[in-house]
């Protein structure tokens, strides 16, 4: 029988299986225990593994992340849940000045195998500061890896890979996709490698690079354009934001000669700029048109009455693609 899970179920299952398999793994966060997490990602895990391994912490992001750093240095593998990406800022110093640097400062003597999971992105009608997409902050910090799955299958496989990774991983979960759809997810443990993108739709006319919740928007735009105009769009899910899968980006671009990047983060200094830079470095002569970015705007993510207008939509993506195709 085919078993289908939502992304949140896939995430829970990944943690459950790692907790069962490896006694060093533990969960820390606000409301992750009795309440099962604000999105229920850790539902029931406290009952299965006890309050010593699934820990309801004080409301204290620097405290949670800082303590997890110490635990990771001393033999444990903490998985931290931060309730929303914008709530991570009090712990930012702990991430950039310590988690990311401990291996470096001690010349490999101590390292920080931890995962910081947090929902991110807009589109759920959340209050202020519940919808940010600031992956760039973390992608700029050597020592961190940044991952953002777009499907339940990848979420489980990437989370297991992140927990097993010897370095700190920022694991960004697109809030909008938590319960948006189900897909087949194997019951056994498997890994989706960090640093590897995936071509989710083959095409020959243009490459669309996206991740997280924007993947679905990109796919929708590709489908519509194919139906309406016969354009053959290739969609590449980057899956890992740092380190980027350069080979996949370049291979797709060489095939199509045109590209757009879709991300919901603000345009300026967003990862789109980095992707374009890779294309410039590696495949400039293959380009038939400038690479366009269809992104969130350079404004604070607005309140939800107009958040849909902030986010790239299939219509905006389509018009960007058409512009690039007709350059």
């Amino acid at each position, binding site marked *: 029988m085919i078993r289908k899970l939502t992304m949140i179920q896939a995430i829970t299952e990944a943690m459950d299986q790692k907790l069962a398999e490896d006694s060093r793994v533990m969960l820390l966060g606000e409301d992750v225990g009795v309440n099962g997490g604000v999105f229920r990602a850790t539902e029931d895990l406290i009952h299965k593994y006890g309050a010593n391994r699934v820990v309801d912490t004080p409301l204290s992001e620097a405290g949670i992340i800082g303590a997890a750093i110490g635990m990771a240095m001393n033999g444990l593998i903490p998985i931290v849940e931060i309730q929303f990406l914008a709530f991570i800022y009090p712990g930012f110093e702990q991430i950039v000045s310590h988690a990311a640097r401990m*291996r470096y400062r*001690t*010349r490999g003597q101590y390292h920080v195998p931890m995962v910081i999971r947090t929902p991110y992105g807009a589109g759920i009608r959340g209050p202020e500061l519940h919808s940010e997409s600031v992956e760039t902050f973390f992608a700029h910090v050597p*020592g961190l890896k940044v991952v953002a799955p777009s499907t339940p299958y990848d979420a489980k496989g990437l989370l297991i890979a992140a927990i097993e990774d010897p370095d700190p991983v920022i694991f960004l979960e697109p809030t909008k996709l938590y319960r948006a759809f189900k897909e087949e997810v194997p019951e056994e443990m498997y890994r989706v490698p960090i*640093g590897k993108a995936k071509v989710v739709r083959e095409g020959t006319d243009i490459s669309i690079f996206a991740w997280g919740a924007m993947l679905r928007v990109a796919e929708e735009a590709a489908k519509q354009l194919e139906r309406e105009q016969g354009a053959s769009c290739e969609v590449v899910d980057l899956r890992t934001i740092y380190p980027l899968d350069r080979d996949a980006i370049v291979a797709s671009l060489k095939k199509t000669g045109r590209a757009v990047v879709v991300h919901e983060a603000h345009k300026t200094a967003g990862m789109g700029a980095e992707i374009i830079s890779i294309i410039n470095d590696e495949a400039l002569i293959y380009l038939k048109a400038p690479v366009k970015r269809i992104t969130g705007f350079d404004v604070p993510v607005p309140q939800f009455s107009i958040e849909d207008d902030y986010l790239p939509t299939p219509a905006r993506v389509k018009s960007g693609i058409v512009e690039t195709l007709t350059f």
Partner: protein
Amino acid sequence: MTSLYQVLAPTGELTQDIEGRLDESVMIKMYENMVLVRLFDRKSINLQRQGRMGTYAPFEGQEASQVGSALALTPGDWLFPTYRDHAAAIVHGQSMARVFLYWMGHMEGSISPQGLNVMPPCVPIATQMIHAVGTAWASKLQNEQHVSLAYFGDGATSEGDFHEALNFAGVFKTPTIFFCQNNGYAISVPFSQQSASKTIAQRAAAYDIPGVRIDGNDVFAVWLTMKEAMERALNGEGPTLIEAITYRYGAHTTADDPKKYRDQEKLAEEWRTERDPIQRLRTFLVQRGLWSDAQEAQLVARANEQIDAALVEAESYPKSRPEDMFKHVYAEPTWMAEEQEGELVKPAKKEDIPA
């Protein structure tokens, strides 16, 4: 609450009976270590002045706090120093050569002796206090009989991480010891302007953990307080906040001029003559017949030899290679680092650049 726990008065007299609580051999070890690290500190300042070392943060005056606390630890206990706590690091087993290397700007200056858990000096303020909660918590969960000791200064108590660390440690009863060296100044700002709290120890009440205010220039008080805190920690009774009142005789760092913010000469002179940690222990040891001028001469000669040997070791340490900066960023290097390392070691030659 503002009273100080003191065992050895500045006059070298015991203010209370400590019979059976402190071996004479430990007292001598304390003295030897304090003299050693003071000479090390002075040497370091000289090296900085000679251009042989980078900016340096001296600790002279604070020897009793650092030596007494670190000497109480056992191997494997976790030590989280700030950039001023190299005396503690040395006492816990860090080599003086490594400390020199750190201040000489070498990548390898932060490596701990194997198994001793001497953490790299923490530069951001108070952040390491939370790590000491995490390591201690992990020790407890893994049934290891080790404490984690976090050093910090009076200024650190204004940071949010101070609060978060004490709060966490209190909730989870982690075997953490928070050791504040209150030397009266956060660079230039006096403690009276740092906080309206009369003391730092009183903050412990807010977390329902023990808070002790001690004479930080009394090495006996420091050591005995630490031992008590360690016993509680290892009995599962949780953390302790220790406020050690002390004074840094010199500047915040070699790049700082304390005359700008305090009556440097007068204050340093007062502390040196009236409350010096080394002087009072020597008076005590001499009065007890445990120390002589001959021993003193031998100690100073031996300490200077050790320091000189450490300096030779540090200065003859292999030169840092630029490619070292690409190592240990991740367990496996990223493609970016691999490529950029190539750019570094093969810089473009002038003739390669088209006119």
